């Protein structure tokens, strides 16, 4: 455990650090709160109940949720395959899992436009079948899937690596086949990691802008997500409205992160025997 040195000095260091945090974090946060509530609660509620705002928030939540669920499943499967099996191309794939973390969100959007845009081969074909990607809702989910890809994988992988295989062997000796063993023994152990990864991906998706703005096409009440709506309001000079909706989004993200924190702490108390 860390021992704190007896010296109480270093006061200058503390003042400097805390002032830095104050200016960089607390001040802007306060400004946002002020912007959202300065006119009072009534206008605040009105702004977030605006049909365009409501739709944008709803669209953001739904697309993030769809992405989170898909990623929970595919991410767990991917982590499983990476840890338990050997196959050609495994090394390369493992290294590239983090690609979405390295690629700027704008460039992600550009990639998707290059692949599915109306001028591309694939885009043209899909367009014939009426399966638009770019400028349609699927495009949003696709962008979010790309951006959120590594979260569940990197959360589950270390748990799988550290896992004691003996519980699975015990289940096998008791007659359980592969799927039953996975369902009743492995999955419960992985559940916390899957939840954490999914929650992080979801939280990230709520605020995603750079990739989504490229592929979404900016049609209000159709494909305008909450961050895009906020941006639009800023551009139109409606800072208060933007601040109001921002508060909702921020609160959602914060709640998720606090919830995760509580889960971590509780898990630490429960499992250690």
């Amino acid at each position: 455990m860390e021992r704190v040195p007896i010296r109480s000095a270093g006061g200058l260091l503390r003042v400097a650090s805390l002032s830095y945090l104050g200016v960089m974090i607390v001040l802007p946060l306060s400004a946002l709160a002020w912007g959202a509530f300065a006119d009072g609660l009534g206008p605040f509620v009105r702004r977030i109940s605006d049909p365009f705002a409501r739709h944008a928030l709803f669209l953001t939540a739904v697309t993030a949720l769809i992405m989170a669920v898909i990623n929970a499943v595919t991410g767990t499967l991917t982590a499983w395959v990476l840890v338990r099996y050997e196959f050609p191309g495994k090394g390369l794939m493992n290294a590239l899992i983090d690609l979405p973390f390295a690629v700027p969100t704008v460039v992600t959007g550009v990639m998707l436009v290059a692949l599915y845009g109306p001028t591309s081969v694939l885009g043209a074909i899909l367009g014939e079948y009426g399966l638009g990607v770019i400028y349609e809702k699927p495009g949003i989910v696709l962008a979010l899937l790309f951006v959120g890809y590594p979260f569940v994988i990197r959360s589950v992988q270390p748990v799988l690596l550290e896992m004691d295989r003996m519980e699975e062997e015990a289940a096998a000796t008791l007659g359980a086949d592969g799927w039953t063993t996975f369902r009743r023994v492995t999955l419960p152990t992985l559940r916390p990691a899957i939840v954490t990864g999914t929650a992080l991906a979801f939280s990230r998706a709520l605020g995603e802008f750079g990739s989504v703005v490229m592929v979404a096409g900016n049609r209000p009440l159709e494909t305008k997500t909450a961050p895009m709506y906020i941006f639009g309001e800023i551009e139109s000079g409606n800072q208060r409205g933007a601040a109001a909706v921002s508060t909702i989004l921020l609160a959602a993200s914060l709640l998720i992160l606090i919830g995760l924190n509580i889960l971590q702490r509780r898990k630490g108390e429960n499992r250690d025997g």
Partner: protein
Amino acid sequence: MKWALIGFVQLWFAILILAPAIALLRAAVEGGLGSFVRAVSAPEAVAAFRLTFGVTAIATVVNTVFGVAIAVVLVRHRFPGKAIVDGLVDLPFAVSPIIAGLMLVVLYGPGSPIGRRLAEWGVGVVYELPGLVLATTFVTLPFVVREVVPVLREFGVDQEEVARTLGAGRWTTFVRVTLPSIRWGLAYGVMLTISRSLGEFGALMVVSGNIIGRTQTATLYIHDEIESFEPRGAYAAGLALAAVSFILMIGMERVRARVEAAEHGD
């Protein structure tokens, strides 16, 4: 069954991750390598990249210095409200870049008291370089702190105390004992900061005002080029930026191995 799983996972990876990456590659070098080089060396592109590197440099330096300071204060000092400070450091992770930009515009924009006072002194924040730096610094604030804190904690106070019994002053102790012990965590944090700074977009869109002829970073340039009807420049610049980030990421993998070695007791 096992091969079905492997196949599915690889297919999913290929469609979701590889295909877009390859599409960008092809779009960027369509028309030949020469066309790519020309697009990347266009004056606006070069200016944009130069601005990005400049902003990144400033944000990185500032966040490295203050990041280490905050980490030291969090790990080595005792004071009430430490948990709150911890939470505040993590805040930029929970904030959408658009909201970050909004915060800064509300705080420093021409409509705000601070903004007006700064304007009197001839200092523009929003729509100007300082705004870009502030936004980037905000967004990348947590990285160095979060990477240094665990390493600092693992490292322990003993060596610092020994140094002091041997007569070393606080600064000497820091430079010659503390800093070397955290160097891999610090390096990783710095690289994360750089990587994130290079790619920042949303906050910059808000803070720089979406005006034609505005100061463009590389990401803003890419965005503007896509909106225009000659996306060639966007593809080329996008590929270049992604390539830089990717190389950085590979370097980070190497460093991460060192960090883990340091954290698990040297």
